[in-house]
């Protein structure tokens, strides 16, 4: 059968459908191919029928009842049927075996599970990240059909998903995934290619090192940076890394220095050190900070020490002084977290000449010294810290923390309160007051924390939880052990309400009445102090009925109508409220809105339940 002729007719009819069957009458192109159909029709009935159809369309015998559309539709239908039996199934060209790189994955997921993940990875919209993460945790990416979507996820517009695919999903496939990534890897590409390379390097092993090296040599800037980082653990690439520190692009040099910091060979260390003499001092310093080669530390300490010693000489030459300060700053960066006796000596020297160096180099140098001493944990370092704290309250916190660790409770008290008691009393001195507030807040950080805790939403839905803030005081036993008893009286003296709550003890009446008075002065529930004070009263073992009454008074205060939610201990106290307060609670509930209202309602409901139970027991 002449398929070509049929196809030609199909094209002609398609043209007529588009142009309109009204134009079919006498169509010359159809007329031209008609004889071929008539000729073939002598042998084949199908072609005969098609020929007749064409004739009826273009040269109707009966023009009166001629309906061009119907004729065209009839012919079109016949041709469609015929063509559908003529489909070719043979392939084009030579055949060869199909290239395949098998992976050990199966297709075990059902449609509903699979489609949810596929949708998350192929659309945009909210909640996609959660779906993907959960799918990964359930091992769903072990399904063959998610391999391609996982690779495509590297280019997801939501970068969290792309990063997750790079860091978790793809590495989990192991070496199997590498050939696919290499297949689609274009070293000249941007962020997506850099992510691909990252995965290749992570799971590819020794075999892909050459590819990574090529990418580091000739890829796009972003790909090169990733490639250089990936080469870092392999010291055989040292010569190349050294050459990249001379690259034109800063990001390449930066990556190269970072990589050298990892391999730590003598030459690598030498190059980082050399860079301090040039324009790359900043990126080299950051790389050096990550390098723990002994040799490098020794050299930097030596150089820093030289700068320190030269300082009095440079003092009058503004330019030289400035350059020296910048250098010192980079040395400090490079020496972050490093320790040596020589370095200690440098910082001790700086501390001794506090006045000079604060004006010469600013705070950076002294901050580094204070940090170093605090980490040192020796009495000698503590002495230096005490010198620093005398010069500047900025260092009070370093000194206090170190003192707290090293001094006995009474020594600590003596140093910070007793010996300077009169000084603290100078209420008129603004500077002293500021220092006092700072001191109190340093102690507060030591003994009070404000963690978040998840609470079941008893008031709305038990299955859900909310993260609510609560207050945690240092436990009373620990206070008794680590702090001198004299602190309490002094804290009352300086009106440090929160700390009084921590340091109070049962039977200490002065502190009890101090706290009661403070709490009575409180009006708004959203002040965190209320929670601290209630905890303090509990610690001081103040009679529970007084505490309930005070809490109730607060609840009844009119200012609290816009209070949003009861948190932490405040909520826990509410739960414990005896049902004697039920009526008073009912009276104030209408004043509250939002979650607070639901919480009060829940408390009221539980009271009602308890009351019913109590009645039931009574009646028995």
């Amino acid at each position, binding site marked *: 059968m002449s*398929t070509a002729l049929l196809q030609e007719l199909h094209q002609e009819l398609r043209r007529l459908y588009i142009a309109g069957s009204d134009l079919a009458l006498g169509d010359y192109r159809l007329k031209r191919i008609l004889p071929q159909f008539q000729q073939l029709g002598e042998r084949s009935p199908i072609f005969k029928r098609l020929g007749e159809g064409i004739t009826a369309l273009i040269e109707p015998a009966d023009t009166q009842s001629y309906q061009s559309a119907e004729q065209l539709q*009839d012919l079109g239908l016949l041709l469609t049927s015929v063509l559908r039996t003529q*489909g070719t199934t043979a392939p084009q*060209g030579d055949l060869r075996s*199909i290239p*395949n790189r098998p992976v050990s994955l199966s297709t075990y997921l059902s*449609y509903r599970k699979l489609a949810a993940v596929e949708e998350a990875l192929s659309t945009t919209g909210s909640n996609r990240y959660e779906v993907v993460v959960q799918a990964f945790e359930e091992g769903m990416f072990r399904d063959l059909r998610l391999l391609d979507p996982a690779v495509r996820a590297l280019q997801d517009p939501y970068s969290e998903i792309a990063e997750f695919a790079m860091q978790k999903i793809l590495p989990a496939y192991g070496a199997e995934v590498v050939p696919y990534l290499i297949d689609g890897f274009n070293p000249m590409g941007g962020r997506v290619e850099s992510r691909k390379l990252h995965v290749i390097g992570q799971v590819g092993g020794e075999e892909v090192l050459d590819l990574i090296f090529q990418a580091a040599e000739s890829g796009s800037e972003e790909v090169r940076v990733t490639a250089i980082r990936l080469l870092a653990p392999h010291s055989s690439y040292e010569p190349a890394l050294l050459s990249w520190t001379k690259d034109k692009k800063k990001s390449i040099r930066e990556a190269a220095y970072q990589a050298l910091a990892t391999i730590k060979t003598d030459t690598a260390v030498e190059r980082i050190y050399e860079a301090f003499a040039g324009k790359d001092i900043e990126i080299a310093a950051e790389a050096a900070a990550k390098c723990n080669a002994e040799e490098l530390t020794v050299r930097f300490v030596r150089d820093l020490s030289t700068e320190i010693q030269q300082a009095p000489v440079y003092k009058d030459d503004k330019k030289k002084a400035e350059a020296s300060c910048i250098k010192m700053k980079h040395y400090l960066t490079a020496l972050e977290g490093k320790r040596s006796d020589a370095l200690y000596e440098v910082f001790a020297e700086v501390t001794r000449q506090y006045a000079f160096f604060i004006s010469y180099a600013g705070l950076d140098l002294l901050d580094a010294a204070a940090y170093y001493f605090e980490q040192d944990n020796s009495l000698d370092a503590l002495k230096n810290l005490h010198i620093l704290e005398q010069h500047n309250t900025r260092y009070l916190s370093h000194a206090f923390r170190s003192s707290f660790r090293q001094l006995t409770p009474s020594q600590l008290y003596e140093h910070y309160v007793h010996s300077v008691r009169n000084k603290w009393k100078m209420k008129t001195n603004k500077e002293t007051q500021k220092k006092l507030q700072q001191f109190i807040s340093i102690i507060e950080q030591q003994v009070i924390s404000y963690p978040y805790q998840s609470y079941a939403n008893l008031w709305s839905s038990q*299955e859900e939880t909310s993260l609510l803030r609560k207050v945690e005081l240092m436990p009373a036993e620990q206070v008794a052990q680590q702090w001198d008893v004299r602190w309490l009286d002094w804290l009352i003296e300086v009106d440090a309400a929160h700390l009084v709550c921590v340091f109070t003890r049962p039977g200490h009446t002065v502190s009890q009445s101090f706290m009661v008075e403070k709490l009575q002065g409180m009006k708004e529930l959203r002040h965190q102090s209320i929670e601290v004070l209630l905890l303090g009263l509990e610690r001081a073992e103040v009679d529970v009925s007084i505490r309930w009454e005070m809490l109730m008074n607060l609840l009844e205060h009119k200012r609290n109508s816009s209070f949003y939610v009861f948190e932490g201990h405040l909520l826990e106290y509410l739960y414990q409220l005896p049902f004697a307060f039920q009526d008073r609670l009912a009276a104030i509930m209408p004043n509250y809105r939002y979650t607070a209202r639901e919480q009060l309602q829940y408390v009221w409901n539980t009271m009602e339940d308890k009351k019913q139970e109590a009645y039931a027991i009574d009646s028995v």
Partner: protein
Amino acid sequence: MIEITSSYVDSLASNNAAMKNAQGLVKKRSFVQLNQSEDGTLLFAECKGSGSSNYQCSADFIQPDKPILRCSCPSRQLPCKHALGLLYAYVGGEAFTSAAVPDDITAKREKAEKREEQKLKQAVDGEPKPKKVNKTALKKKIQSQLEGLDVLEKFIQSLVRNGLGTIDKKVIKTMQEHVKQMGNYYLTGAQTELRRLTLLLSEAEDREQVYTDVVEQLAIMHAFIKKGRTYLTNKLADPALALDHESTIEEWLGHAWQLTDLKEYGLMKEQAELVQLAFVSYDDPARQEYVDEGFWLEQDSGEIHRTLQYRPYKAAKLMREEDSFFDATRIPSLYRYPGDANRRVRWEEMAARPLDPHEVARMSIHAQRSYADVIKKVKNQLKNPLSDANPVVLLHVAEVLLSSQDEVVITDEAGQHLVLQDQATAGHRALPLLTHLSASQLEDVSMLVRFEHDMDTGRLTAMPLTILKDAEMIRLLY
């Protein structure tokens, strides 16, 4: 003893979210008390929920193939997450303590039993009451349908006469109005096809690319109008004429088959064993429905059947979304729709059991070994414009090759070739997955494929859906 698998429980859930929530309840240990009746036919439990008291949920397996899931929660979703969670807890091996059947369940069981008896009684006494057909009403309906076909034909002819090139926004609007009208003539099938035509023309970015499809669609509609008219005219002359249970014309006209009708025409088969080979779910905007389509192998005959579930957009949220099914199913009564290859099937009851790996291996004997024969049959079916244009066949594949034009080609033992191609209508790509398979998974295997004829290129190609290799089933779709 109740024998269920977790995939069976999955299959009971209405959607993915319900599964997740139900499993969440088990994980969060929300079930307070897990009980099982002494005879092992009932699972019941209390589950913590957001209400003040616990929900009472139960799963009644008194009829093992038709469990009844009950719950006291107010959810409109059936089954709710609590009842599903109960089953997941059971499958997951949680400890169930033995207890007496609660009174309310006993009462409900009795009621159900009575209902069942009543049904049985009706079935025995009433020997399906001869359906009363209101002849005047039927005549009126047929007349209206004929009228509708005339309207449709006239409209289509006006489109053809003026040419597809002249169809602009205004014409599209008239087309949409006609789509609505078809509903008034009891012609839902015609409505769907006209909407398909309208969507083809209105949604194409480049008309030139869809003209071939449009022309084909016009031909199909022409065939439908002609066949429909002949059929309806005959029926009008003799309203007592039975439904046409051989061809698909009833469905084209919008008839929804009742199971009792199918049984009456001898289209019910008893005790069939089916295994699902492939599944896909898609959105059909022409039908205004989501379609869940499954392909099943009947283990005795080797026939490939098709399950179709339509979920209208408006009701989609409340309806169960079908899912891939991995167990073997035994179906007491399998109802088959009229049609050619891959007939649509339905059932009301079924029992599932885990699929034995040997069974998978045995299914390969049903794979067609001669492509020449298959292609002949396929073409024969395609010749009829009103038949299903995408027949699905299980083929034996000797090897998978690649042509120099990068076409994937399968070969039978006689060396006959068939080009594989992903089908745009499916919206999925199966071919790229082939490169992830090992050589042995592509050699001497069985492959479920779906055919498609492309009018533009004049080629008949097939899309691979599933591969069977020994005891392994690799589903390329779902």
